[in-house]
């Protein structure tokens, strides 16, 4: 105990100094921060919506497009079934909310109806004039679909916003077709708007190289193919592809996507992984088509068109386009979060004030200061000299905690403040455990140094066991939870780690310094 290696002392004090360095931006204005050199830390703690306000976005769900797409999917399904049962039909196309078709033999309509029932209960057929039929969804079915797409949209929006690392957003359904989002902090919501503006429908499809692009663009297309735009080439002219309409595999079969770098070219890429079904389907398709080209398509735009050099059976692969690092990150994020069931449109954008009134924030600040002072006084009364040491640790603890929150850009909200209050309690707890143990050892008749030594080492198992249990709990909360639960887990983890450091390592350095300098033989009262 008495001998702490010099490097350890330097390391412990170094961490404290570093923390103080990273806390400096907290006391500077934004203007001053911008004038500082680049190497200087410039991150401040992000205050949550309740404490500071932020950006407000109102999004509208475009149900019409979604319904049109769903109708088209239903029509494709019905066509397959009709062909299977050899029922002849003509001109079967989806137009917005309905699809119109003609039967070669009008007597078949009852058979068609029973097929429709197996596909979707909400389908309705009405006879039009001159042998035409119209296929529509009942209003009940449309309502149900609208509700489902709204709920799913909110879930995907939440996932995307969470994935950007924006902690504590406010996401709420408004009216029947709108989603209200508030993001803490005053940063530009441009990236979020960009991310939410994309449906992110991901498809893997084969390319058709049997026709030239020029022919295809003039309309001479093989059946079941279409012309898709790609990203611009090096000369900034647009690139086009002829892609088969049939989808080999879609984004639903993805389980993970991560931004990465190509080890050979050092270009940003996105690595992805399919689930078992997707891996099998992708493996089969690539096995049969070695040497051909396929396209990776996001929202009907080709992002990459690689050649299949060998069957890809492992279920994972990578997309290399000419991405910037940010673009690769965003693409991976969109792939992970999944596709929106309907496009979203930003219809309103504003900045909003804090959810808590300025009065509540001021009294909250006062209360926090009072609570810290009360704890400090309590410790001083309870342990006098060792109380001072514990209080120094407490102060450093707060500094380090704020520095860690600034560096990780964790959002501080009202619940976060409670987390900090609890952390103060826990930080003090470690010192209480050590000091109580020292008292106990002294009562058993040990000499001062031996008592302090025993106090620290005996209390250590307890501190490690209780804090590790908490950390394990926090890790699971972070893994399974979302939104505020995750925020809580982050604050708690930072708090426990920092408090273990200050309460054990820092106080020990101070105590050893005191023992060596003043050579006391008994505890000062």
């Amino acid at each position, binding site marked *: 105990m008495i001998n702490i290696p010099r490097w350890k002392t330097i390391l412990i004090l170094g961490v404290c100094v570093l923390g103080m360095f990273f806390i400096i931006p907290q006391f500077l204005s934004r203007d001053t921060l911008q004038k500082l050199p680049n190497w200087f830390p410039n991150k401040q703690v992000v205050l949550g919506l309740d404490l500071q306000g932020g950006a407000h976005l109102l999004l509208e769900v475009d149900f019409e497009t979604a319904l049109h797409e769903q109708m088209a999917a239903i029509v494709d399904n019905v066509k397959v079934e009709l062909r299977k049962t050899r029922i002849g039909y003509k001109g079967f196309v989806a137009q917005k909310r309905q699809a119109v078709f003609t039967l070669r033999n009008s007597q078949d309509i009852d058979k068609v109806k029973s097929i429709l029932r197996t596909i979707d209960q909400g389908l309705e057929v009405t006879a039009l004039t001159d042998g035409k039929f119209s296929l529509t969804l009942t209003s009940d079915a449309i309502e149900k679909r609208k509700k489902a797409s709204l709920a799913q949209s*909110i879930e995907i929006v939440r996932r995307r916003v969470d994935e950007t690392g924006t902690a504590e957003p406010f996401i709420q359904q408004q009216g029947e077709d709108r989603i209200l989002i508030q993001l803490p902090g005053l940063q530009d919501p441009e990236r979020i708007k960009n991310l939410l503006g994309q449906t992110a429908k991901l498809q893997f499809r084969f390319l058709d190289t049997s026709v030239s692009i020029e022919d295809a663009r003039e309309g001479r297309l093989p059946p079941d193919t279409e012309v898709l735009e790609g990203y611009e080439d090096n000369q900034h002219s647009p690139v086009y592809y002829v892609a088969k309409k049939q989808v080999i595999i879609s984004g639903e079969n993805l389980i993970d996507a991560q931004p990465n770098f190509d080890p050979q070219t050092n270009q940003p890429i996105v690595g992805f992984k399919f689930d078992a079904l997707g891996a099998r389907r992708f493996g089969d398709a690539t096995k049969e088509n070695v040497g051909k080209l396929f396209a990776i398509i996001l929202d009907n735009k080709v992002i990459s068109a690689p050649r299949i050099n060998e069957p890809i059976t492992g279920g994972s692969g990578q997309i290399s386009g000419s991405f910037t690092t940010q673009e690769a990150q965003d693409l991976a994020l969109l792939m992970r979060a999944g596709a929106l069931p309907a496009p979203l449109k930003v219809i309103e954008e504003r900045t909003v004030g804090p959810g808590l009134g*300025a009065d*509540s924030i001021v009294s909250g600040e006062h*209360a926090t200061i009072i609570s810290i002072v009360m*704890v400090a006084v309590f410790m001083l009364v309870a342990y006098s000299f*060792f*109380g001072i040491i514990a209080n120094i640790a407490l102060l450093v603890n707060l500094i380090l905690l704020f520095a860690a929150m600034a560096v990780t850009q964790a959002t501080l909200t009202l619940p976060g403040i409670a987390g900090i209050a609890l952390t103060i309690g826990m930080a003090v707890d470690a010192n*209480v455990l050590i000091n109580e143990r020292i008292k106990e050892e002294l009562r058993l008749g040990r000499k001062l140094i031996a008592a302090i030594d025993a106090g620290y080492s005996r209390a250590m198992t307890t501190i490690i066991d209780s804090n590790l249990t908490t950390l394990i709990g926090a890790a699971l909360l972070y*893994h399974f939870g979302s939104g505020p639960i995750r925020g809580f887990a982050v604050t708690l983890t930072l708090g426990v780690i920092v408090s273990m450091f200050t309460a054990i390592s820092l106080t020990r350095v101070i105590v050893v310094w005191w023992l060596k300098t003043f050579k006391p033989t008994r505890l000062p009262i």
Partner: protein
Amino acid sequence: MGIQFFPPNSNINFMGHKNKIFALMLLITMGCFACLFMKGLTYGIDFKGGLLIEIRTSAPANISAMRTSLKNLVHGEISLQEFGSPNDVLIRVERQPGGDEAQLQALEKIKSHLDANVEYRRVETVGPKVSESLITNGIYAVLGSLAAMLVYIWFRFEWQFGVCAVITLAHDSLILLGVFSLFALEFNETALIAILLTITYSINDTVVIYDRIRENLRKFKKMPLSELINRSINETLSRTVLTSGTTLLSLLALYLFGGPVIAAFSLPILVGIFAGTISSIFISAPLLSIVGLNRGKINEE
């Protein structure tokens, strides 16, 4: 070394009153359960949704004055937020009990308490802020972390310790839910956090006592289990009380000086931490004597 808040050799007979304490705790827990079952929880705007009103005032709005005048006017929470400019205010009111009629009445009440020349730019119904997936994820998160803590304690101690710790935590969460139900406190996002805080705090307290029990099991191989547990609780008592004291003190300051919003938020946490402290002394350790320990196994280690 400072003032001794607690006599160093306290010898309170916790184990002697074990059965009475358990009976009392069981009664309270059952009461909480019954209350939850009969009264349920009072869900706030976070869970229920409600009305959203956007107004524009002729002069910059005094939001805190508005909050005071609108408070208690309608059922449940009301939140005000500056919206874009100092003249625009966004008001959120939780869904009123009753049908559409009740929502309209609440709107009229609010209108009558605001200045006559306030412009109503929009009145809309909004859905809950807390999605169902947040709640189901939250439940999985809590169950997952309970299971992980059980496994860790099992690994570091014995399975009996893990089981008793989890029973104690379940008791604490139930008490807190019961308090929310009984006093019809708003069950919102922060209530969820209060429960998480309680669990975290309680497990910390419990592990400290278990640690001492483990140490004493190695030290006093022949001491009867009941006496040994009692000794361990007494030995850690001053620490338990001091730590809870400081934590409760800092929360009490938040409650007394934090203003109405922060007070409403810190109250359930105060209750939770108090319950957590009590249960770690009176339940988690005495429970071990009922479940029983395999002392031979601990001595081998």
